[in-house]
C-alpha cells in the first residue's frame, strides 16, 4: 500500500510552496507515495477540499496562529479518496536536506511529532500553566490511520473551549497529548534528536543553539517563526544549496 504525505494550505499566499514541497519529496523519499494538499481552494489534482465545520468557533484576533485546520486530517474518514494507512504530515515552511524514508520505518505503537530539542525543557515546565514555551512543533507528524482520531474527537467535542484557551496547536498538543515530565510516556512520541532542527531557534539546547545555520546532516529544517520573511529566507537558502 502506498504511503500518504499530506500538507495543508489555505489562502493563496503560500500556494507556490505546495509544489516546492512536492519537489523536495520527489527528491528525498524513495518510497512510493501519494501526495495530497488539503486546501480551501482545490485546483490541482492532488488538492482535496478542507472541511470548514470548526470555522464558527475560531476567534481570529485571539488565536492568530491556531492552525486548527491541520486537525481535520486526524479523522481520515473525512477524506474518503485517501487510501492506505500510513500518514506523514509536513508543513509548507520546511526544507528537506536528506532522505525522509526513515520516517516510514519508525515503530508505530504511538504517533510521532517534532520535539523542539532547542527548547530548554525547564523553561517549558515553568511556563506550562501560562500556555507558553511548548516543546512540541507540529510541522512534522507521522501517524497510522486511526491513531489520531482521539485528538480530532476531543477538538470536535470541545471546539469552543479549545480554540479560546490554547494559543497555538502546539500548545494544545503539549497540554493534552504529551507528558512534559516523562517525555516517553505521553500519547505523542517525540521524534529523536538530530532529525529536525530550527533555522531561527537552533538545534539542541544548550550546546547547539546557533541560529541560521544549515545542518546538512539533519533531515528537515523548520522555519518556525512569526517573522514575515520566512519564505524569503527559505528561498535564499534553498537556492544557495540546491535543495529543491
Amino acid at each position, binding site marked *: 500500500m502506498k504511503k500518504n504525505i499530506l500538507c495543508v494550505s489555505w489562502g493563496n499566499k503560500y500556494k507556490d510552496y505546495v509544489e516546492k514541497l512536492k519537489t523536495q519529496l520527489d527528491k528525498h523519499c524513495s518510497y512510493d507515495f501519494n501526495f495530497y494538499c488539503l486546501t480551501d481552494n482545490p485546483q490541482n489534482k492532488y488538492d482535496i477540499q478542507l472541511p470548514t465545520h470548526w470555522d464558527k468557533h475560531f476567534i481570529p484576533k485571539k488565536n492568530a496562529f491556531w492552525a486548527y485546520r491541520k486537525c481535520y486530517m486526524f479523522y481520515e474518514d473525512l477524506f474518503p479518496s485517501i487510501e492506505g494507512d500510513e500518514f506523514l504530515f509536513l508543513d509548507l515552511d520546511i526544507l528537506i536536506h536528506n532522505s525522509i524514508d526513515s520516517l516510514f520505518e519508525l515503530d508505530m505503537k504511538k504517533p510521532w511529532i517534532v520535539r523542539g530539542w532547542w527548547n530548554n525543557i525547564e523553561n517549558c*515546565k*515553568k511556563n506550562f*500553566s501560562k*500556555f507558553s514555551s511548548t516543546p512540541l512543533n507540529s510541522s512534522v507528524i507521522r501517524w497510522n490511520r486511526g491513531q489520531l482520531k482521539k485528538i480530532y474527537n476531543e477538538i470536535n467535542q470541545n471546539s*469552543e473551549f479549545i480554540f*479560546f*484557551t490554547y*494559543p497555538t496547536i502546539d500548545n494544545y498538543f503539549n*497540554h493534552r497529548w504529551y507528558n512534559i515530565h516523562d517525555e516517553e510516556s505521553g500519547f505523542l512520541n517525540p521524534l529523536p534528536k538530530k532529525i529536525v532542527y530550527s533555522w531561527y531557534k537552533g538545534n539542541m539546547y544548550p550546546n547547539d543553539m546557533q541560529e541560521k545555520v544549515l545542518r546538512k546532516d539533519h533531515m528537515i529544517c523548520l522555519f518556525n517563526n512569526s517573522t514575515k520573511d520566512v519564505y524569503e529566507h527559505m528561498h535564499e537558502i534553498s537556492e544557495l544549496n540546491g535543495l529543491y
Partner: protein
Amino acid sequence: MDYIKLTPKISHDWSRGTHYVTKEIPWAAERVKFSMNHSQLQSKLWLGSELKKIGDSFNSVAVIGGWYMHFLGYILIDELNCKLVCNYEIDRDAVLISKKFNARLTGSKLASKYKSYEANLFMSDFLRERNRGEVDLLVNTSCEHMYHMKYLLDKHFDNKPLCVLQSTDYEDYDDHVNCVSSPDELAEQAGLVDLYYSGTKVLENGMNRFMVIGK
C-alpha cells in the same frame, strides 16, 4: 480577616513546601515566590472575609486552578472549617507543590481535608467522584486565566453550588486570556443570577480585583 495565623504546623508545612520546590522543582521557584506576594494575600483574605459573612463549614469545596493553595487552603480549611477542599489544576507541578503546603490537612485517604488533582474540568468529567458527592462551594480566584465559568458550571452541575469568583481587567499579561471590565461582567460570564456579594478592590500592585459570590 486581616492576617494569617502562622501556627507552628503551618510554618512547618510552608517551610517544607519551599524546601521541596528549591530541591525538586527549582524552575517553579519564581512562580512560588510570586504566589506569596502582598497582592496575592490581599485578594485571598478579601475572599475569606466576604465568604465568612455568607457561610462557612462547607462540606465539599471545588477549587478551579487553585495554584499552590497555601493561602487559600489555610483560609478555606483552617479559618472557614470546610470539610473537604479539592483543588483542580492543569499543572502537575502546582498539584505536587500544593500538597506540600497543605500537608497538615492531608492525613489518611478518608480523613484528608485537602486533595489536589491534575485535571482540566472544562473537559474532564470527574468532579463529583473526586469531591465525594455534591459540591456546595466552588472557588475560582483566577478566572482571567481561563474560559467562561458558565461553560464549566453547565458541564458539571444541574444546580449550581455557591460560587466565589475573582478576576481582573488587567490585560497586560499574555496569560490573562479572559479579563473582564467589572464584577457584573464576571457574574454574567458565569451565569450567576443570585448575587450575595459583588465588589472591586484595588490591590497593592495597582490592579483592580473583582469578586462575586453567588449562584
